[in-house]
């Protein structure tokens, strides 16, 4: 189980309704149902992942989050989760607004392009960074809009999106990110988890 999923599960209250956008094979949904008695639904674009979810008895809709979030009514979920996919959309802003329309709150995690290894890789080797959290080469990456935790922080401020909490993840360590430690956490976190409303 990914550490990130455990952190997300801990952020959520029990017995709520959650939509997991880009739910993959349903590992997070499984965790939320078992540990938090959460009513979980998924939206997933990959056919083989959709089938895996169905075999597990999870509720999943095959579809593209970029174009098909409109099928969910306003505020029909307590939380909507988007794990490490925001950067892959053509219009992250549109998706983010849709997440907050469908859910009362949203949890959005991003691979942090501001992480020091990413920065040094470009600086020292002059090549696009390839790391564990960003395993793709420049020519085959699905990530169209890479950003840093700081970028996301500023973006939310600009778009009047309320940030309830930010967590930085580095390996097994989790830390809370505030305005006063943003610079340093932006350097040392591999993943940023934003709770938005």
């Amino acid at each position, binding site marked *: 189980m990914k550490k990130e999923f455990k952190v997300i599960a801990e952020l959520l209250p029990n017995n709520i309704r959650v939509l997991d956008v880009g739910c993959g094979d349903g590992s997070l949904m499984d965790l939320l149902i078992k540990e938090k008695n959460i009513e979980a639904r998924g939206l997933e674009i990959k056919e083989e992942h*959709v089938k895996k979810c*169905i075999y597990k*008895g*999870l509720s*999943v*809709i*095959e579809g593209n989050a970029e174009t098909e979030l409109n099928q969910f*009514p306003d505020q*029909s979920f307590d939380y909507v989760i988007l794990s490490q996919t925001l950067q892959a959309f053509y219009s992250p802003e549109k998706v983010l607004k849709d997440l907050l329309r469908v859910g009362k709150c949203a949890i959005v995690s991003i691979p942090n392009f501001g992480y020091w290894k990413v920065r040094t890789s470009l600086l020292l080797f002059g090549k696009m960074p390839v790391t564990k959290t960003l395993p793709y080469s420049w020519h085959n990456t699905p990530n169209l809009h890479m950003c840093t935790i700081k970028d996301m922080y500023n973006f939310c401020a600009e778009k009047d999106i309320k940030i309830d909490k930010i967590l930085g993840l580095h390996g097994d360590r989790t830390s809370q990110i505030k305005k006063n430690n943003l610079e340093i956490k932006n350097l040392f976190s591999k993943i940023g988890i934003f709770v938005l409303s």
Partner: protein
Amino acid sequence: MENVKKLNISKSLLLDCKQTVKDFPLAYETYGKLNENKDNAILVFHALTGDQFVTGLNPITKKEGWWGTAVGPGKAIDTDKYFVICANVIGGCMGSWGPKEVDKKTNEPYGLSFPVITIRDIVRAQETLLDYLGVEKLLCATGGSMGGMQTLQFCATFPNRTYSAMPIACSTSHSAQNIALNELARQAVMADPVWDKGKYIKKNVQPKNGLAVARMVGHISYLSEKGMQEKFGRKLQERGDYDFSFNADFQVESYLRHQGFAFVERFDANSILYITRAMDYFDLSRQYKGGLTEAFKNQKTKFLVISFSSDWLYTTKENKDTVIALNAAGTDVSFAEIKTDKGHDSFLVDEPEFLKTIKGFIDSMHIKFKNEKRI
């Protein structure tokens, strides 16, 4: 029809056309056994030209049942494990109350005096069968095409009668294109002079030519353009050159003629009129006064909607619209599109990805249903 099980429906049923009927036969078949916990019953709804003989040898036609690819011992819907029920729709011709049955009032076959029935009438008649078989709550209700429409109607009309539902390759209302194709089939039947306003039935003949054309129309719509091209192309039928005639030179012609004329041996022409009409009238949103959300509200049923990428009769878009409506009503719904070239017919043929998906869904639903019943 000696090998046909029939239930006499004695309670009165108010049809959508406002006629009340009672004491009519519903022909059905079952496979497998209902277990002690009664958590393994699956109701299968057949499509336009199907019947209650889902799998194994059809005792009337002596052919393999229409869903033998999916249902049977060790199959995706495993009859060693599940109790599968299927009824012939009213309006049909495999033993259920339909236009070729004898009207007790006149002692003659109904023909066109049979009332125009709807999908809701069809489904309501079948609910009685569940009572008779002692099934309080189904594990799953499922069917493809018109069987899928019955599945949706069943869930809307009887929201607590099934734990899960799998509407396959269908829609919540018939599109203009589908009505047009059905009208083509009906006109083919009615243009046959033998049909004689449906009175052929009293003379013990069949408007075979018209009915065969109606079936050919259907068969074209069940395949995809690509699938048809791959299967037949321009291949000639058992000849090296054109015949310079109107014989079936091309394989595709030969296929359609074969399908058309094999069909007339087992089906009643008036039944085609009545059942296609029921499909055309199907419109859940109209039934629930303009709101599909209304049709599916208070629904605890867990849905899996399945579409096929090359189906142009009930497109993925239409199936997704059903999903949107179910979502809007807040129901528990899953959706999968099976990528295939086999067109609308995909649910009837050996399509491994489809079969794996339905097996995965039903098996996982059975585990959940069992657990829920235990609590």
